[in-house]
């Protein structure tokens, strides 16, 4: 998987690393059980501070997407086929989604256009469960 970041962009680097890994998991490019480079190796590969990658991995661990251990390194813990998320996570995500959609509405995007954008974004992910016809 190619992980692309913009080190001089407006979004913090740790957030970009976290976002790209979430997108790779959703798109099936980084399925549950697959490994990621260690924090030190990814820091070298991206030319960024070790603590920046550590922060991204810790964020993903707290979100339940990554398992970190000394023995097996960083391993993806769940993906689209791992069953429904926890109720706590769903509530938090709904609140963040509400703010994101409100931004579009505040900028004058019609409701139909917002829904079309949402559908296009979801369609971009190749959910393995849906592809196999499972619920």
């Amino acid at each position: 998987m190619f992980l692309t970041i913009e080190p001089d962009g407006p979004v913090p680097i740790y957030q970009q690393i976290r976002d790209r890994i979430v997108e790779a998991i959703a798109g099936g490019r980084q399925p549950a059980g697959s490994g990621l480079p260690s924090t030190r190796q990814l820091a070298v590969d991206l030319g960024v501070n070790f603590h920046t990658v550590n922060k991204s991995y810790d964020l993903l661990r707290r979100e339940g997407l990554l398992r970190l251990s000394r023995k097996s390194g960083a391993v993806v813990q769940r993906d689209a086929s791992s069953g429904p998320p926890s109720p706590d996570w769903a509530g938090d995500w709904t609140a963040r989604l509400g703010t994101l959609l409100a931004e579009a509405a505040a900028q004058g995007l019609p409701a139909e256009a917002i829904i079309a954008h949402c559908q296009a974004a979801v369609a971009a992910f190749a959910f393995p469960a849906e592809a196999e016809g499972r619920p």
Partner: protein
Amino acid sequence: MTAGALAAVFAVPFYGALFCVFPVVTKPTVQFGVRVPPERTGATVIGEQRRLYFMRTAVICVCCTAMAILLAVHGSRWPPMLIVPIEMAADIGCLLVARRRITAVKRAERWFAGLRQTVIADTSWRADPPRFPVRWLFPALAITAATVLIGVVRYPELPGRLADGFGAWAAPGHRVPKTAVTVFAPVFAQLWVTALWTAIMLIIYRSRPEIDVADPAASVRRYRRLLARCASAMLALVTLIDLSLLLAALRNWQVYRLSGAGAALPFLPYAVGLLVFVTFVLRSGQGGFRLAADGIDGSQPPDLARRPGLADRDDDRFWKGGLIYVNRDDPALMVGARFGVGWTFNLANPAVWLLISAIAGVPAGLVIIAVLTR
């Protein structure tokens, strides 16, 4: 002509020609140490500066070679090898002039305006790292073992005072007392050369691949090929350096005797190895960009065609003088060289200074031991 003078007559045109061709083997997106967006690689200022740099460095090469030959033929208290650092300084001056002109135009025309500057990592690289070709180490170790064996056999028959120095760098007529350190100095040198370059190649193997935003998949494959080629070429060069040291040891141990330019015989394997190594590396290009990317379908457009508006990160601020890499945030020990081919140290990393101290410390320690045991 002495062996040292002959070595200088070889070294001056060699390094001059090397600097001369550097822009050709450097990626079009980092000309003269300046990061250039893919759509600006054909800018007029770059073409102009390439022509001027080539002419200037060619004139420097010709003048310095003529000067080295004159010093070597007529004899002087100034060693002809002194021309090499002078020539290199002049060539770096030409690089800095070209770099300044291109940077000025780049800033004035805002080449990176509106582009998303990215860095790419291949997360699968660490899961399937390239294998270090250990088998290429065996010839170098066999030569070192042979040197030790011959040294042990010759030791009892050696006189009380021995010739000093290695190959072309031997001090004519200078003798040192016979001790284990002075007799086996060539073996220590062989071990140091082999260990040093193996360690550096291992660090390079653990460093990051150079991935171009223009075509990440192809650049990773090219980099993999470059590593394999460089490691085998480097270890072949190490073998030939060890052979040079063996020939120098045989001369010091009075197995053979040659005078005048003939004394340069131990220098020959090293010179041949260096020429072959440099040719091999130059043909690969910076980051392997001149190599074919195995398994890439050439009929498909490069990745950048599908993702317009992207460019490699403008990282000029981390390159001092377009040659020296200093980036505190980057934990890498070594990164790809900016001008020409090869790799360079990240001087902002404290571990690099420890490494440089170790590299310089070993021969310095040996010289101190040799002086103390006299």
